[in-house]
């Protein structure tokens, strides 16, 4: 934890908690891959600074509508702003990091 009284704190963004939602469809190959890949990336870059919610759209189809989901798997970064959507099985680590604003 950094000192909040510091005049210049370049690391504020890094300290913010990431609110992430991953929408998957059951145990489809892409979904499974996405979950695994994402876990690896998050553990590596955002350890302890994220809240990940994994939602099976099959179970909650209404959420698909309210969250405007079409392509799956999709990771929605709710916070910090701006909202970003990461579509795919998260196999391209660079793109995932860019999507999360970590690059």
């Amino acid at each position, binding site marked *: 934890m950094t000192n909040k009284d510091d005049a210049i704190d370049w690391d504020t963004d890094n300290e913010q908690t990431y609110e992430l939602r991953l929408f998957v469809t059951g145990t489809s190959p892409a979904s499974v891959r996405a979950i695994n890949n994402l876990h690896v990336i998050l553990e590596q870059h955002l350890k302890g600074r994220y809240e990940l919610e994994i939602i099976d759209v099959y179970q909650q189809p209404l959420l698909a509508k309210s969250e405007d989901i*079409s392509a799956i798997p999709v990771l929605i970064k709710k916070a910090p702003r701006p909202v970003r959507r990461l579509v795919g099985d998260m196999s391209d680590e660079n793109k995932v990091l860019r999507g999360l604003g970590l690059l």
Partner: protein
Amino acid sequence: MPSKKAPFPPKQPMHQLPKTPTGITGLDEITMGGLPTGRPTLVCGSAGCGKTLMSIEFIVRGAIEFNEPGVFIAFEEKAEELATNVASLGFDLNELQQQKKIKIDYIHVDRSEIEETGEYDLEGLFIRLNYAIDSIGAKRVVLDTIESLFSGLTNQSILRAELRRLFQWLKNKGVTAIITGERGEKTLTRQGLEEYVSDCVILLDHRIINQISTRRLRVVKYRGTTHGTNEYPFLIDEDGISVLPVTSLKLDKPVSSDRFPSGIPALDKMLSKGGFFRGSSILVSGTAGTGKTSMAASFCNEACLRGEKCLFFAFEESPAQIIRNMRSIGIDLQKHVDKGLLKFYASRPTLHGLEMHLVAIHKAIKNFKPDMVVVDPITNLITIGSVSDVKSMLVRLIDFLQEEQISVIFTALTLNLVVNEQTDEGVSSLVDAWLLIRDIELNGERNRGLYIMKSRGMKHSNQVREFVISDDGLDLIDVYIGPDGILTGSAREAQVLMEETGQVLHTHAVDFKDRELLRKRKVLESRIESLKSEFESTEAELNKTYIEDAIKKDVLQQNREKLSNLRGKSFYDIDTTKSKNKKSKK
């Protein structure tokens, strides 16, 4: 019994493709029943040609008229925007959504928000679609415009595979679907959706000719069924889309042998049946100022006097103008208007395109339900369309009117004085009766000659009549056919006068001869009289000499007797002289 073996009605053989009516005016006729049930249909066209409207109308009409709930997946407009956009058509999407008759889902894919990190699929779309369909038991689905996915997502191969899967999935689901697509450069749609949706493809087009836009619709393909293959104009107005079949495919209209008089008794006399057939089309053509409108107004007036309803489409004059002008020839149209028997529909031809006019005419006729329709003049429509366009429009109009058994009077201006066997619009072959009013120029004077060029189904006079417009209305007068040819107008009047003069002179001459004879007779009689008196005088003269002679003789005798007495004559002699005297006296 062999007939009991076939429980299917003959109209619907087993193999026939089931169709879902769209409820869109005219479209079901072109597609002969509607879109293929349980299959996707592609509606493509360029921007602003009415794809979204057509698909939303398909959904709304399905929900309202056919009790088939529908799902509308919008990729371009939000549900609220869509509701606002179609509210002008009288579709209340929000209420229909509340009634669970339709469901609108807005799917937004924004490339700026999206990072593609690997393989994916569109299962989310499927789930939402499935959920929407199942929640209201939808039978109809619209995807408008699914190509938007291509702008949001970049992985073409995934998208194409997923679209193929989607259309297959829709088929399996058994919903009748419309997929809209933007028109591409060389292909029907930008992304080649026609590859995936191959059962039925409808192409919408929006063309501007002479600054007037016309929308057209064409069924490019429709697997497993016949369909109209032409380009059909359609339009979007406050009632939604109306597609107008260019021509009805069959000629099986009912016909009437009732007749109605024209309002000009002399004209009716030229026709063997004493009038025109009800439901027939009559063309009145002529050069400028020959009284075409007056003739049409006369038909109108007569119909209204019979208590029939009449609708007057004026493309040249305003109703007030027509009423005023017709009053001058003794036709009072105002009272018919007041009674509600006559209605004017006046508009400038350039107000909108031909199709719009046609639909406006259709609508006005459907609302007013007239027995007779006047279109005055059809020639003015040429200013807003090509000749063939106008002709095709008139064909459809005549078609429609015949179907409704409405008599129609067209007026047409012929521009060419020499060649007037054809009107410019070439409609003369379509109409049942054709009256031609032609100028007859003679002795520095212009008169109107009326010909009945044709009148189907009845004998008609082949003679030219002079068409006279007077304060008392219209009349036809037999033209004078003399040794110098046909005489009309004042020449005819002069001829009549000349004949009258001749008659007077002739009577005068006869009178004169009679008097002459009388005089001669008088002269003769007087001469006879004078001769008679001459004869009498001669006779008297003659008698006089006789008497004188006798007297003389007597006197001589007496003198002689006296002398003989004096001389003492014998008795005997005296006696004989006495008897002789007596004889002569007698």
